[in-house]
């Protein structure tokens, strides 16, 4: 186990800079998720930590030792790949024991460690099989097993669940998290799925275009996003962003209807802002509400109902826990939880 730190890290492909000097400190035993849209540099960052990509500038350190120029095999890092990357010509046991064999660990110890890892991952019955004889979920577990038998300083995961079907993905998510809780190893997990990041990570690093947008615990990011990008990236259904201007003590939408501003927010009149509020922070009220929503689509999911419609001519989605009897086209009075409202500058996207 170890702490990993990245300082002013840069990566160029030819003349194009894809990672623009980023800093992250990962504590011993922490589970950190790197999230962001495709091409944001999260996988490149992970591969630089692994040593599979050269570092253009800055440093990567493990336990305060700079490892920029250390070969991947000497970094004591294990990585689980998206495609699992199991060696097809080796059995499950050989796959798991490969690293130990290379490290010249005595055969009986290797055997014991493979057995232990296999027991943890329910793979004991499959040790003599070849990867092609396993299902997707089992292969995924072998890939995990191959990492844990080594007891490395750091675990890296590169979108390990994206090749699994939805149901299995949820189960493996839980398994990986419980495994991390048991082993307590420093883990860095790359995903584009914000739900995975939210549910598994101690801290999330949100990246975009080679920069870090925000680092924080899942709920910090959810409750206090620093900008519009983080706000829309985290949460499903996505946060509602209504466009309009500040007008005295109210927010005025383009059609002239108004919404109250959160306490303490004032601004120059006419400042263009976006009014961000998450779907679950709406309440359907009897009588007079803060505004009126016109319902277009009603989607019951069982545990909640998603209502899509418009407020002041702009699209919004709200979720309600109650079972509702609503018809498309109906207009309903709604109130907002003002403490949960975020205002973002319309030009810079930064939170006000």
């Amino acid at each position, binding site marked *: 186990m170890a702490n990993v730190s990245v300082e002013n890290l840069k990566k160029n492909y030819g003349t194009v800079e894809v990672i623009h000097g980023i800093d992250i400190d990962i504590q011993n035993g922490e589970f950190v998720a790197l999230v962001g849209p495709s091409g944001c540099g999260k996988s490149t960052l992970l591969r630089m930590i692994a040593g599979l990509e050269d570092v253009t500038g800055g440093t990567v350190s493990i336990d305060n030792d700079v490892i920029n120029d250390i070969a*991947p095999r000497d970094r004591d890092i294990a990585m689980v790949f998206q495609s699992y*990357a199991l060696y097809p010509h080796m059995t499950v046991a050989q796959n798991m024991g490969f690293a130990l064999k290379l490290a010249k660990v005595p055969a009986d110890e290797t055997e014991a460690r493979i057995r232990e890892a296999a027991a943890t991952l329910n793979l004991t019955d499959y040790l003599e099989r070849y990867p092609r004889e396993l299902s997707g979920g089992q292969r995924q577990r072998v890939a995990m097993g191959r990492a844990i038998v080594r007891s490395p300083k750091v675990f890296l995961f590169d979108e390990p669940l994206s090749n699994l079907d939805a149901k299995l993905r949820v189960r493996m998510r839980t398994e990986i998290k419980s495994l991390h809780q048991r082993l307590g190893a420093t883990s860095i997990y790359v995903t584009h799925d914000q739900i995975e990041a939210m549910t598994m990570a101690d801290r999330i690093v949100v990246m975009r275009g080679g920069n870090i947008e925000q680092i924080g615990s899942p709920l910090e990011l959810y409750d206090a996003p620093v900008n519009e990008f983080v706000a829309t990236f985290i949460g499903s259904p996505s946060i509602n962003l209504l466009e309009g201007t500040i007008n005295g003590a109210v927010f005025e939408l383009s059609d002239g209807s108004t919404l109250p501003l959160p306490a303490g927010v004032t601004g120059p009149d006419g400042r263009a802002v976006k009014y961000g509020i998450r779907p679950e922070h709406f309440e359907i009220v009897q009588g007079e509400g803060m505004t009126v929503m016109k319902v277009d689509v009603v989607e019951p999911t069982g545990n909640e109902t998603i209502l899509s419609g418009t407020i002041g001519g702009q699209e919004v989605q709200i979720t309600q826990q109650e079972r509702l009897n609503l018809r498309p086209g109906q207009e309903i009075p709604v109130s907002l939880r003002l403490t949960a409202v975020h205002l973002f500058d319309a030009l810079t996207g930064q939170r006000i």
Partner: protein
Amino acid sequence: MNRMTWRYRIFMNLANVLVICFLILPLVPVVLGALQSERTLHEDVWALLPAEYTLDNFRLILSGGENKGEAFQGIDYLPNSVTWFRNAFLNSVLVAGSVTVLTLVLATLTALTVTRLKLNWTGYLMNATVVSRMVPLIVLMLPLFVVMRNLGLLNSLSGIIMTEVGLLLPYAIIILVPYFQAFPKELEESARLDGCSRFGAYVRIVVPLSTPALAACGVIIFIISWHELLIPLIIASKPEFMTLPVVLAGLVSDQFVFFTVMMAICLIGLAPTLLLVLLLQKYLVKGLTAGAVKG
């Protein structure tokens, strides 16, 4: 697979059989020729089947001209090709075997450079490789002879091997590079994190998983080398360094042609390539299509 009508199927099978017959037809006179004596061959050249069968041709070449049998009684002069046959066969095995192994090793290393190391000049290297295959071999013969003479490698098996490796390396590289390009990179990366060096990952993971491609490539190289006439002919003039194709060529001269002996040598010469193809058949089909389609 689309369902074919029975008429279409019969037509396709018939066409297939015809092509196979066309390819195998030349073998028929070879087999029949090898099994008769020169005398019966000349008695009636239009006869479809030999008047009498004999294994004397095989006895003669396998005994290096010692055992003349009935068919060759009274023949005093035997060309070097007959007396040195056994030696030539061994030379051929040695040359083709060494050429195949050396070419595969060098081509695999080149393929590693071209596909894995991000160097600017590998593109030019590949172009040079392709272009080098466009030069007809016969054009190179004179300069090759001079170079080999200066290196003191004339009349040596190592000279033949070296030249053939140089000739066949581009073929092997062109066959192997696309295969290694299609090879999933994660496997190597995973091995490098597991404790292999770049080269170690290549040797432990990439090469064992490339057996089909290496087998296919190896068979092609072996067959070309086994049949190569020009290079050994130019480099080796002494009978002790002859290979099989040179032996065959030596049976045709101004004064004599040993037809039936030639046919017997052809048959024996076919055996190793045939054996190799049969042994590696399952790899061949896989290897030649590997890399074409992902999966």
